């Protein structure tokens, strides 16, 4: 057989995948390993989708996506963050934010150009940079800086080949939210070195007691930010695969060029549902946020009580406690906890080397499950 691309082979398989395969073979596992809402998509959204099928909305849409949806996205962003995008030239509906990440990277990168990726972060960023021909440069962050990169770190990592910084706050896996001031100081560096910022803000609505800073709304942010967001988390629509990009028209044009050839358009059925989500879904989202917040406090307190020091996350639906005092690596801890107490968590090193010594626990699961998982984990800790 001819060779498989060296570039693809150089990317290791996802650390999450390995774990998933073990969990599948077990019964009665309480999983804190799920990176998606435990809510089913609100009924009004599902119903709108069914209605669209009944009415025969089964065709392609514009490559950019339904204009009504792009207008709704533009209105939403303007209403929430005061940033104004032209729905005709600055908004692209994509198949999840995942596609948008790929499009953004491919649209801007020359071979060998570098993208700074603060870690721990979502598992797809570094591979996507590599697939796009670029070089990912990990910026390790720690709990001391609330899992946010410092301006000094960013400055020190910049080379003549640096093209972009990939930000993702609120963060999966840490739940960290960056303050406006901290964001601005990163943005100032991007302006000084003329870099793009790719900002994946998929968890923007899931913040607790703080407000989210839209990177595009920062001073100097509008021109250079490729703002990515979608419907998966805020509206519990992971399986629908609808995301969007909003940015400068020239960048969008480049992204659109790739999108039209590889994807044509996002599925119309899911776009119709997304439209309903933006028009009428906010009360459902608010209720979900209230419930996440209660669970968040419960799990943070629970982890700290059983001796797993837990940074207080202000966003997303993850906690990222340290397992360092057990003397185990993330993977050892996660594997033993799974085999001995049937609680599934994700080892922190799946999200970058600096995630070693941590585990990611999702609280997108019922209160009962959280309490059960905490009891089991406490039992596990007592035995150590």
């Amino acid at each position, binding site marked *: 057989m001819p060779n498989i691309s060296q570039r693809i082979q150089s990317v290791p398989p*996802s650390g*999450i995948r390995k*774990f*998933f395969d073990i*969990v*599948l073979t077990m019964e009665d*596992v309480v*999983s804190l*390993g*799920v*990176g*998606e809402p*435990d809510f*089913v998509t609100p009924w009004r959204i599902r119903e709108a989708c069914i209605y669209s099928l009944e009415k025969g909305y089964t065709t392609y849409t514009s490559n950019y996506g339904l204009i009504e949806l792009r207008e709704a996205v533009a209105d939403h962003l303007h209403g929430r963050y005061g940033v104004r995008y032209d729905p005709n030239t600055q908004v692209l509906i994509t198949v999840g934010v995942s596609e948008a990440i790929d499009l953004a990277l491919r649209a801007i990168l020359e071979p060998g150009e570098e993208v700074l990726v603060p870690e721990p972060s*979502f*598992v*797809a960023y570094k591979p996507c940079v590599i697939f796009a021909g670029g070089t990912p440069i990990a910026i390790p962050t720690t709990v001391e800086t609330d899992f946010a990169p410092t301006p000094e770190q960013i400055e020190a990592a910049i080379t003549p080949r640096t093209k972009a910084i990939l930000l993702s706050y609120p963060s*999966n896996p840490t739940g960290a939210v960056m303050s406006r001031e901290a964001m601005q100081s990163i943005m100032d560096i991007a302006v000084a070195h003329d870099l793009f910022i790719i900002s994946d803000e998929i968890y923007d609505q899931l913040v607790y007691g703080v407000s989210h800073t839209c990177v595009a709304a920062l001073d100097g942010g509008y021109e250079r930010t490729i703002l990515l967001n979608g419907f998966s988390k805020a509206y519990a629509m992971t399986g629908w695969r609808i995301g969007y990009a909003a940015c400068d028209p020239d960048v969008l044009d480049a992204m659109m060029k790739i999108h039209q050839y590889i994807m044509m358009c996002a599925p119309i059925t899911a776009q119709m549902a997304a439209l309903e989500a933006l028009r009428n879904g906010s009360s459902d989202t608010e209720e979900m946020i*209230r419930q996440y*917040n*209660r*669970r968040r*406090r*419960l799990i943070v*307190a*629970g982890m700290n009580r059983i001796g797993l020091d837990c940074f207080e996350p202000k966003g997303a639906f993850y906690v990222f406690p340290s397992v360092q005092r057990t003397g185990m690596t993330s993977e050892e801890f996660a594997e033993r906890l799974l085999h001995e107490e049937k609680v*599934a968590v*994700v080892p922190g090193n799946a999200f970058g080397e600096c995630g070693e010594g941590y585990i990611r626990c999702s609280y997108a699961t019922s*209160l009962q499950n959280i309490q059960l998982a905490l009891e089991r984990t406490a039992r596990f800790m007592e035995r150590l």
Partner: protein
Amino acid sequence: MREILKILESDSRLSPEEIATMTGKTEDEVRRVIEECERKGIIRRYKTSIDWEKAGEQQVFAFIDVKVSPERGVGFDDIAERIYRYPEVHSVYLVSGTHDLRVVVSGTNMKEVAFFVAEKLATIDRVHGTSTHFLLKTYKEDGVIFEAPEPDRRLAVAP
């Protein structure tokens, strides 16, 4: 207060300690709010949502729409009271529309409920008519769906 009440409304078995953690308040504060709400009657009682049919219990419910004439000075209140004092009466609502009171009555069988309506309700002086609807199946009650819950279809571990 609203947050604490909302949490209790969804699960009244949670302890003040747990509620305190969930809301970021102190345990004392939560206890105080709950006691105050109990005292003021904001919290009426702690009830459990039970699927009696599943429990194998024979219990019949009927919704009875009642037409009554109001009395000067007290409106419908006195007659509503005469009705709700019966232990068979589950709830009584004053409603708009073609009838005045909506009464929910329970019994062990249809006959028992029908007799109650015929003998006790319909014979009250100012009651002009009743219309009885027997409950056949409960789909959702107090926000709780009685059908089998939708299974968690998510993958056990996902990025």
